[in-house]
Each structure stands twice: as structure tokens, then as C-alpha cells.
């Protein structure tokens, strides 16, 4: 029995030496690590604006010359003219887009005058978001409702000269909206 155990030990010692040699020659193992990240994107409804009502100063006769004003609620006031019964209105625009989004409002591009042939009257706009009777100043930003809508009301003033020639004067309001 004693002889057997010595014989059994020898192969083990050889095997042990062989395995040490193998480990010594091995290159350093490489290790991997993994992580996850979130990716996001937000698509919004395009913003759009359409005209609902034109700005109409109505009919009047020039007396001494002055101003005719339509406020954002559509009420007309005047100096130096006599008003004639006619249809008058503030302009209104309907904005649609992404619920609760904010946006800028610009009227750059609006004609500086109303024109009838060679005759002009200077136009100055006034605007708000609630038809509150504003006569001066322009609203520069808005916020769409939870339903993605908002109205913009535009009134203005005309400078009427004492000798302003009679005629049908027209111009155009250019209203632009952009998400900001």
C-alpha cells in the first residue's frame, strides 16, 4: 500500500509543474463592461396661423384731418373726421399647433401704409391676445392653450391728412408665428 501511494504521487507532481508553466506564459485576460443609456426625441405639431377677420377702418369724411383708430375689440375712435355708418372690425388670426407651446409673433412685412392709387395713409398696428381694447403696442409672444390654439387680435391707427383724397385705401398685415 505504501508503494502504491508513492507511485500515485509522482504523476500528480508532474502535472502540477506543467500547469504552473502554462499559467506563467498566459497573456493578461481582457474584461468587458456594459451600460445602457436612454435616447429621446420630441415631435411637435407644426405651428400655423390663418386669418379669420380683416382690419376694417370703415367709411369716413375728412374734416380737419387727424386719426382713425380701431382697437383690438373693434371699437372705432377718431379725430378730425366725421364717421359714416359702415362695417368696421379689428383683424383676428387663429394660431394652431402644439398644446401649451410658446411662440413669437411678428408683424414685420406689414405695409407701412394703406394705399389708394398714389395716395397713402400711414398705418400703425396694435395687437393683443384677448381683444381687450388695446390701441397701442404689439404682443410679441403667445402661449398655445392645452388644445393647441390661440387667437391674435390686431387693430391700428390711420394718419388722415387734412386734404386726404377720397378713395378706397387698402394694405395688408403680414403676421408670422414661430416656436421659440
Amino acid at each position: 500500500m505504501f508503494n502504491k501511494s508513492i507511485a500515485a504521487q509522482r504523476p500528480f507532481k508532474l502535472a502540477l509543474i506543467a500547469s504552473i508553466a502554462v499559467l506563467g506564459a498566459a497573456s493578461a485576460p481582457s474584461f468587458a463592461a456594459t451600460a445602457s443609456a436612454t435616447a429621446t426625441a420630441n415631435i411637435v405639431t407644426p405651428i400655423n396661423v390663418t386669418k379669420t377677420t380683416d382690419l376694417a377702418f370703415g367709411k369716413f369724411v375728412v374734416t380737419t384731418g387727424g386719426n382713425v383708430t380701431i382697437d383690438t375689440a373693434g371699437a372705432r375712435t377718431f379725430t378730425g373726421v366725421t364717421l359714416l355708418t359702415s362695417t368696421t372690425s379689428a383683424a383676428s388670426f387663429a394660431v394652431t399647433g402644439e398644446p401649451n407651446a410658446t411662440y413669437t409673433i411678428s408683424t414685420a412685412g406689414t405695409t407701412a401704409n394703406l394705399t389708394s392709387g398714389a395716395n397713402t395713409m400711414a398705418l400703425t398696428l396694435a395687437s393683443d391676445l384677448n381683444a381687450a381694447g388695446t390701441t397701442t403696442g404689439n404682443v410679441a409672444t403667445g402661449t398655445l392653450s392645452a388644445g393647441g390654439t390661440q387667437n391674435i387680435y390686431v387693430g391700428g391707427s390711420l394718419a388722415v391728412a387734412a386734404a386726404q383724397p377720397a378713395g378706397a385705401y387698402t394694405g395688408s398685415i403680414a403676421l408670422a408665428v414661430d416656436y421659440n
Partner: protein
Amino acid sequence: MNHLRLLLAVLLLGTGCVQAKQTLTNNGSLAFGRFVAGTGGTITVSPAGLRTQTGGVILLPSTVSAATFTASDNVAKDASIGCPVTLPANGTVTLSNGTSTMAVDQFTSAPVPCTLSGGTRQIAVGATLTVAPNQARGNYSGSFSVTVNFQ
């Protein structure tokens, strides 16, 4: 005797695999930001976090970011240890708003090549989002995995 042989064998096998702990941690998400789908196109966010578009997609002011990760082997003096990055293959990552999806492909990372400095490295990952014409509005999200094979 048999127990001793077994113990020796286990000790010898154990000493060959001792390493510092390698980690990859996500620090920030990949954000394509806000936009109008329009006639569709693509949006790319570079690893530097710059956003560009092709086609009819209209980009809007918003927060945009590349995804960021920190690779570390937690040994402060380690430099020149490679940290090559494996990114998702094309066609494997999508964003969803619950009903509609968009594919995220062409993943890219920086820096390339990647090597640790002081045992660590910040890695940034960008990609390209494909937007269909009139893609449905909403908040889209998804996730992706990145692997670093420390050398």
C-alpha cells in the same frame, strides 16, 4: 493527501485572474430634442452634441445631447489601457411614443481610439434618427447598450 493536492491546484488557478474592477457607467442620455416632422428626413446628434438634419425635418430650439459614459478600471495610475467601444448595430434600436416608432442607427463614439487616462475616460455616443413624413407627434424614448472591452 488528496485534500492538499486539491488545495494547491485551487490556489494556483486563483492567482492568475486577479484584476482591478472595470466599470462602465452611463452619465447622460442621447437627446435628439424637439422638432417638427414635416416631410420627414433624418436628425443626427454627433458625439460632440451637435445636431443637424436632412430632408424636411424642422429643428426647434431645445436641449440636445450626446449620450455620455465613464469607463474606468479604478486604478488611478493606469494610462494607455485600451477601452474600445462596441456600439449597437443598425436596425437594433428604436424610439417609441407608445404607438409610433422611429429607428436610431449609425451610432458613433468618441474618442477613437479610446484609451484610459489616470484609469478613466469619458466616452460620448451619437447617432442618427430617421423621421417619417408626418411622423406622429409626441414624446419618444428608447434605450440602447454600449460595451467597453478593456485591453
